């Protein structure tokens, strides 16, 4: 579908429709670019609008009328093609059987009801227009949940409480006390920060575990600070203060 060039004779013709308000030429352009449905354009209102603005005495009056008639005819053709009934699969390739009066009455009855329902809907839309819902949509803030320390302690106790004593047969006899290792750590820290690895490099597995417990205990009482730059990374013991 193409429109003949209008020759700008209708450049001053503007239309006021529900679906569009502005120059007629732009209306045609929007329809051609599929940005406005021809379906939604009331052609009768369009013609009436032109008749109201018609200037038969103008120098280019005849040219305007001709251009409008040409473009309006194209719009009618376009709309009528768009409105063509959808092809039923059963009707394709053959003559569609004419409907009996009863069948036609049935279809018209159904359509009549839908028309009434459409009128009812129009009134419902009109009476409910102008309601704007709350725009105060607060986005969720991940990671900013309110935490209660006592709930975390309880959860930790539950998670780490052991119902069964772990097997200790693989462990040798404990030959060192927590206090002894705490003293050892304090002495090592007198010279500055020390890594847990170097501190325990000469120890057996059991002593390393007790040394770790001693370090945690000292950190809890504030005697030292533990720092670890990344999970499972090297652990450094630093004198506090």
């Amino acid at each position, binding site marked *: 579908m193409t429109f003949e060039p209008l020759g700008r004779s209708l450049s001053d013709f503007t239309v006021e429709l529900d679906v569009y308000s502005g120059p007629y030429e732009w209306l045609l352009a929007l329809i051609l670019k599929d940005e406005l449905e021809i379906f*939604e354009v009331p052609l009768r209102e369009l013609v009436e609008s032109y008749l109201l603005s018609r200037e038969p005495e103008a120098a280019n009056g005849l040219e305007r009328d001709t251009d409008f008639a040409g473009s309006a005819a194209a719009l009618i053709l376009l709309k009528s093609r768009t409105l063509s009934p*959808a092809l039923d699969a059963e009707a394709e390739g053959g003559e569609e059987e004419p409907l009996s009066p009863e069948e036609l009455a049935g279809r018209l009855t159904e*359509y009549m009801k839908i028309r009434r329902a459409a009128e009812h809907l129009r009134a*419902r839309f009109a009476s409910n*227009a102008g309601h*704007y*819902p*709350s725009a105060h*949509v607060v986005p969720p803030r991940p990671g900013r949940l309110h935490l209660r320390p006592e709930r975390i302690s309880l959860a930790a106790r539950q998670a780490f409480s052991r119902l069964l004593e772990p097997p200790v047969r693989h462990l040798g006899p404990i030959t060192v006390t927590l206090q002894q290792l705490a003293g050892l750590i304090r002495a090592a820290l007198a010279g500055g920060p020390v890594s847990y690895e170097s501190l325990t490099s000469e120890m057996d597995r059991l002593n390393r575990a007790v040394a770790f417990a001693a370090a945690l205990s000292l950190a809890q009482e504030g005697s030292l600070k533990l720092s670890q730059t990344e999970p499972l990374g090297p652990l450094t013991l630093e004198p506090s203060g």
Partner: protein
Amino acid sequence: MSDLPPRPAHLVEAVLLVSARPISRSDLASATGLSEHETEAALASLAERYAPESSGIVLRNVAGGYSLSTNPNCAGAVERFREEARPAPLSGAAHEVLACALYLGPLTRGAVSRVRGVNSDAVVRGLIERGLLTEVGTDRDVPGSPALLGVTEGFLAATGSASPEDFPPLDSLVTPEELDRVRERLTSSGTEGEAP
């Protein structure tokens, strides 16, 4: 700031304020920790406070829930502030398609076109873009499994309806006398051409 615990109506009001969509009564109760009875009483209290004649905000019971929205009497000011024109009214064709989806749906685009007697695809497309119509499934009994169309929550909100049951039954919209007149007219026109 007061240390007093908030009243039930305040809790419901706060939750409604931060939701652009209608919230069901049960969701309100769940969010506020109120009982069903307390939620009901809170909503009744808010309905009174947000009556259209006394507030620029109104409480609406639409689309299966409750929502706060602006009073339509204030729509002009809201539209000027937002620098938005009110959406263009729907065409007659659009209303018919919505009526098909509401009363006969879910149904396919082809079914809509058959009821209306004209191709309705373009109108359907426009209504889907406006959020009033949506594809709710597929018709597996038809070759190609075409999409089934139904009305949306936005449609119910725009028509001020709590649910599709809020609309009058389709059969009640046309009187038996009117239907009889159509049948008579068709029958008489069908026999006019016949030889006496």
